[in-house]
């Protein structure tokens, strides 16, 4: 598999070739510090090219850090290049994945990159069957397909995944649309922060508003209202996300939203203190309202009951049940 351990001149290594790179971590300051102190203690893996240069199979960060630290040579294991070229490339792919996967848990983007490397040589079924060997974890067919599909996307999308602003299922959903719409959704999700379910809710509601009202999805996504929300002076991404959800929900479910708003207004008119809650039936479908309040002793309990008696006499309470 390997030739002898050698010290290779860094200037012989093609630093631009990142064919086997799967790591997404670009922060290597801590590594530079360590290399300055102790040098590179774990050999990198290199593959010799025809023109007497080397490409990196594993150790991109170590080499970059080594350059920062000012070292001239790196200890390297050289992949044996005698034999079938495809088999050697397959070996390099496996090495690049396992070298990472057996040191730490790979994130989804890294697994996707690893899968893309393997897919050139073996089938999805074979990957699934050997996923523990390659990735140090079990992957099923759906995950493999999903991550492969995400892997081919732009780095900016990968960055959003890594910063937890974009869920894999969200990407798979918006990939069903054309490039322009895909990018508009990406733009939206890059500016708000919310979990996967809420992202999917935004996509579904937008899609269904367009279908219901015979509108172009593009038109909705580029609308002034959505742009205003994204450019809101309050820069809190959670706040913007909630505004966007509320806006779309109001258009998608106008009557339901109106009923909830009226309900909230009546509750406001009742001037109930925050510790007392009156909740309507879920979606106003059932018949039962619920009342809850908190108290820590009998005196507080008595006070709350007295407040409830006052609420009972308030006319807004009657409106609540209309």
């Amino acid at each position, binding site marked *: 598999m390997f030739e002898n351990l050698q010290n290779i001149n860094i200037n012989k290594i093609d630093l631009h070739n990142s064919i086997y790179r799967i790591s997404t971590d670009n922060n290597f300051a801590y590594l530079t510090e360590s290399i300055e102190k102790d040098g590179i203690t774990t050999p990198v893996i290199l593959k010799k090219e025809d023109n007497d240069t080397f490409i990196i199979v594993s150790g991109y960060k170590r080499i970059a850090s080594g350059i920062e630290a000012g070292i001239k040579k790196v200890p390297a294991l050289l992949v044996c290049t005698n034999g079938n070229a495809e088999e050697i490339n397959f070996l390099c792919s496996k090495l690049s994945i396992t070298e990472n996967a057996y040191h730490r848990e790979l994130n989804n983007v890294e697994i996707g990159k690893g899968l893309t490397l393997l897919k050139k040589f073996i089938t999805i079924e074979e990957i699934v069957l050997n996923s523990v060997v390659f990735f140090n974890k079990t992957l099923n067919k759906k995950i493999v397909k999903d991550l492969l599909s995400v892997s081919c996307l732009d780095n900016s999308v990968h960055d959003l995944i890594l910063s937890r602003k974009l869920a894999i299922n969200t990407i798979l959903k918006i990939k069903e649309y054309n490039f322009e719409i895909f990018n508009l959704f990406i733009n939206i999700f890059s500016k708000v922060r919310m979990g996967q379910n809420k992202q999917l809710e935004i996509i579904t509601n937008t899609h*269904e508003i367009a*279908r*219901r009202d015979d509108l172009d999805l593009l038109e909705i996504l580029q609308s002034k209202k959505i742009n205003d929300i994204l450019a809101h002076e309050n820069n809190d991404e959670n706040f913007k996300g909630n505004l966007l959800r509320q806006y779309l929900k109001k258009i*998608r*479910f*106008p*009557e*339901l939203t109106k*009923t909830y708003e009226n309900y909230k207004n009546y509750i406001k008119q009742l001037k109930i203190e925050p510790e007392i809650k009156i909740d309507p039936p*879920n*979606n*106003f*479908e*059932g*018949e039962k309202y619920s009342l809850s309040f908190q108290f820590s002793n009998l005196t507080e309990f008595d006070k709350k009951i007295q407040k409830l008696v006052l609420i009972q006499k308030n006319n807004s309470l009657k409106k609540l049940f209309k």
Partner: protein
Amino acid sequence: MKIKKLFLDKDVIPCQETKLIQEKTQLDFEIIENENQIFDYINSADDPILKGKSCLYLTHNKGAVIKDCPGTSHYTCCDYTILHTGTFCTMDCSYCILQAYFHPPLLRYFVGKERISQSLDSIFQEHKNFRIGTGEYTDSLIWEKISDQPSFLINKFAGQHNSILELKTKTVNIDSLKKIDHNEKTVISWSLNTEAVIKSEERDTSSLKSRFEAARKVESWGYKLAFHFDPVVIYDGCIDEYKKVIKTIFDYVSPDNILWISIGSFRFMPHLKPLIEKRFPDSKICYGEFILGLDNKMRYFKPLRIEVYKNIVGQIKKYAPQVTAYFCMEDKKAWEESFGFFPEPEGKLGKILDQSAIEHCKLKSFL
């Protein structure tokens, strides 16, 4: 949808009913040892649901012949009884739950009149009134042109006094019903909808006009009638269109011959939605204001349902105050706001419908 392939369960090959259907369809058949053979055949298609509509499987009913309508919790059921004569349907309605109900959906025709006959005999001996229908898991008259099952059932019901048979359909397959001595124990009923809904959501069904014409014909042959507005679909202008359909009913038939008119708004199990979106890309039926109901089905937001109901019920009362109208699976509020009452206690709705059946079909009353 035209049947292109016939599958025969090896056990039904000797049956006369099988021979009749083979003869009428003139189709080559494949003998089936194991149902999985058909499932594989259907599941290999891009659209297994559509494929399932193109092949007919003649087999015995290996389960119960007579079942209670499943209903659902929290909403009022009419206590209907189902005669299980087959599954699935040749027509292709976007909203049809049968698409998601059978795995995979397969057109089964249950051969075996003897077993049906025996099951019905026990029902007919009970001191209770029954409303029995075949239109729950299939359309009651899709096989009328190739099978004598409808006439067998009509004759069977003609000879008893505690039950009515309801044949519920969207077809106009009624020719063989003409000369049967039904003794007024069979009700032919049609699912109705607005022209717009029929056009956009009900592939391969009969037109509204032809349903009305068929209703008029069977009425002239002495049959009693029923109509079902289910699913009521809410869209801009739907109220006027439903009102128009209701008015038209009475242009064609007499309210005195109508046992009941049922009303139920579109509701669906959540997993039906992606199926509709995939199979009916032009349909907008899923994009109403649906909420998750208490029975875990999606339903229109209640005030919207009630608004449409009030108008439909009002129109029925305007043209035919004597006709029994009712909701299929609705709650107390919907009943009270639309009809002004709620059939309480549980079972009351069934009794109201039994009463209508007794009066119209000269049943012996066991109420």
